[in-house]
């Protein structure tokens, strides 16, 4: 893979990551809007969802910055390697979110719903995977 193509691809991925950031912020707003009207335990679940979506937005920002770096220097290995760490951090945040819902609601049903909230951190995870996949200069 030549450097110019890798630079162009990184620029496109940076835009994609920015869109992922916007998507996560939209999800955070949707969760917060519903949390304001939801009763009791459902409100706790949705506030955790809003927090996870904000974390997803921050992770998408990290992916965007990594791609900006790759657009400047396509051989920047640290930017690619950082995607693995980012994925672990995001998944840890999700796991903590599930435990918080369990601790606050003490209900299996809401804990299961919190497990499904992995979708809220999916945008940065997918963009991180696409970034790690490349194309990178050989």
């Amino acid at each position, binding site marked *: 893979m030549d450097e110019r193509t890798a630079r162009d691809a990184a620029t496109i991925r940076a835009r*994609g990551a920015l869109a992922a950031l916007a998507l996560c912020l939209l999800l955070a707003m949707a969760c917060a809007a519903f949390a304001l009207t939801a009763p009791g335990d459902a409100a706790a679940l949705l506030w955790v969802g809003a927090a996870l979506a904000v974390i997803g937005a921050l992770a998408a920002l990290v992916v965007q910055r990594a791609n900006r770096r790759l657009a400047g220097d396509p051989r920047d290995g640290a930017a690619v390697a950082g995607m693995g760490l980012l994925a672990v951090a995001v998944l840890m945040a999700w796991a903590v979110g599930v435990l918080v819902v369990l601790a606050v609601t003490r209900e299996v049903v809401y804990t299961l719903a919190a497990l499904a909230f992995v979708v809220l951190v999916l945008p940065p995870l997918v963009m991180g995977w696409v970034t790690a996949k490349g194309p990178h200069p050989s």
Partner: protein
Amino acid sequence: MTPEEILEKLHAKWEEVERKATALLEAFNNTLQKIARFSGWVAEKAAAFWNNTVVPAWQKAVDWMSEHWNVFGAPWLCFGAAGDWRSGVGQPTSERAGLATKGQLDVDTTWKGTAATRYNDRLGEQERALGAVSEQFAETIAASLTKVGAGIITWWLGIIVGIGILVICLVTATGEAISVFGLPAVPPTVYAGWASFVGGLIIGTGALTTLCLLAKSDLAGARTKLAKFPGGSWPAFGS
């Protein structure tokens, strides 16, 4: 932003997905034409991937969405109804349960005899039955409605994320497809988009189904535990 506006935005996003998919198809075809000039077999392979994998998956998704588009559900109505059950049924009956106890009326202490004893014995049953309307029925129904509402929201989130990532990946893949050297990156990006779309649907649908089944089980449980309603009906006052 109201839930109706969110739904409207989702409709618009889906239309955008359809437009982006068409743009990707055009970009892919244009690049294939360029490749075909000097390497026909690469173009053949890419066309086979497109026709055998991407297009059928796309068609399936479009069919599924058009079938389920108008049955989204309204979580705000579930939450509103849950509140109504608590404030309109549970709370008033709970407050009145305390009135069905001995000592509320002068007749409770002045009235003596066999009939008075029978009456006083039955007062406790009335109090328990009134209390159960709130605890056993109103609260269970409200909690079940809340669970279904939360399930619908989780399903929406899955759909929004699925569509959102698909749009992002299709746009990214379209950008990659305009260059011959970038073409190898197109399949993984498209796969990631489709996998996220399918994953979002499965996770959202799974969560909604689980929450609805658990809510149904709670309601069925409330109907079968009738200890405070002798014989499954409201306790009689006199017999």
